[in-house]
């Protein structure tokens, strides 16, 4: 199976691994972009509406309902990315009180249950989408509601996969905190705020 080219990554499997890895990175970029885009879309539409109302005396009736759907999308996309970073609000006494090796096994157990629960959620929200497509005739801003609901089964499905992954590769985080941004705050560049205030007296 050796092709000669991928000597260090191990041939076909290595190439496959590389492809999967880049797909994963691509997908992560996609979900981050989607999350940011929903926010910017909401911001833009809300500002547009204010301008219309205050300067032109009318409003577009679809903007508010669409922005409210944005809230649902942010909830699910945000939680999806949050799962990737293992960054959810939780009580999590275990990791504070128990020894590390036990904590790891508990983490696996929790991830297993979470994966199963999320798979069920994905399935039942998918059923809602199908029900809405068959019977519901509602739409928001001209988009059928079932298409707007589609984010639910997708996000829950992805979260289920991520927790399933964590069963095998538990990420260890010391507490229930937004770890990534804190890590960055405390890590390199953390001295940004600690740096002496740009005091004019000190400079002179």
């Amino acid at each position: 199976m050796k092709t000669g080219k991928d000597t260090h990554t191990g041939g076909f499997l290595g190439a496959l691994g590389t492809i999967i890895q880049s797909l994963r990175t691509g997908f992560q970029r996609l979900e981050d972009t989607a999350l940011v885009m929903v926010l910017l879309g909401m911001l833009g539409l809300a500002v547009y509406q204010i301008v219309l109302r205050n300067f032109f005396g009318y409003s577009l009736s679809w903007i508010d309902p669409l922005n409210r759907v944005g809230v649902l999308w942010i909830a699910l996309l945000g939680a999806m990315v949050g799962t990737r970073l293992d960054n959810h609000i939780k009580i999590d006494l275990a990791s504070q009180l128990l020894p590390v090796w036990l904590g790891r096994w508990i983490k696996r157990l929790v991830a297993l249950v979470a994966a199963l629960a999320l798979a069920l959620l994905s399935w039942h929200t998918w059923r809602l989408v199908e029900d809405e497509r068959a019977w519901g005739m509602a739409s928001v801003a001209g988009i059928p509601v079932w298409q707007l609901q589609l984010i639910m089964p997708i996000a829950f499905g992805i979260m289920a996969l991520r927790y399933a992954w964590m069963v095998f590769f538990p990420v260890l985080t010391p507490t229930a905190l937004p770890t990534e941004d804190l890590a960055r705050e405390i890590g390199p560049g953390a001295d940004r705020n600690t740096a002496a205030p740009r005091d004019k007296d000190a400079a002179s």
Partner: protein
Amino acid sequence: AAGTVAMELRIATLLPDGTGEVRALRQASERLSAETDGRVTLRIFPGGVMGDDQAVERRIRAGQLHGSLVQSGALARVYPNVQILNAPFIFDSYDETDRLRAEFDDDIARELAERGIHTFGFIDGGFAYVMGHQPTRSVEDLQRARVWLPANDTFSLQVARAFGVSPITLNISEVLTSLQTGIVDTIMAPPTAALTLQWFTRVDYITDMPLIYTYATLYVHDRHMSRLSEDDRAAVDRILRETTEQIDANARENNRAAFEALLNQGLEHVQLTDTEIAAVRDKAGLAHEVLIREGEFSRDWHERLMSTLEDYRQNGR
């Protein structure tokens, strides 16, 4: 195989607990229980705890709820012509609405029944009127005003557009504040709503021309009715019909009283001149065309509506 097991008919409504309608439904539950030896009761979910019309409709499909007491427009997705009496600026008096209800109620109920919705009758919601910070005496006044409309209400939106009104859409919960601060200065609402939601405290004028006739209906989906035995079904049908009739009669009185109460609160009564009434009716005709074109109700039913009304005005029947 319709079972004879005990069943709790689960009914949702946006009306808050303690209102006459909700009390009447609870009484109906007691009567039902007595007459079916406890096999059938009602469970009422008042105050919108089950969500808006769409959420309720989804829950009925999922079997969590069985029926609902809603504004008729909520069933428009099932059968658009339920909105026929909502056609704007057609009525002068409650006598006329009674005549048209007599003409249409049964037909609407039959059409809904064919689509799996078992209604027990219709309930007077009163006329919606134009109220505002400044008097609305003409179509032009309305076009100049900052008019509130609920978001996602396509029917009202079509009407507003036909009248050349550029509405400001806000959530119901934001109307009171927005009236106070001037984000909107004109609303269209039935007097009962203006009273219970405190909107009357932030407006000064009410135009004495009925804008839209509103009505509600009590229904249970056939899917759930059919789980009852034939006798029980008959009991449910009879008792809920009587309840709906009773609510309807009380509602009429309440709506008249609410209008009077608004005037007693110091809202100034704005009368339209005959020329202005004619101009409004003219625009209303346009609005009806738009509503027909957009599929909010059918041309057949609209023709029947207008000819019945004409007939009643000419011949008194």
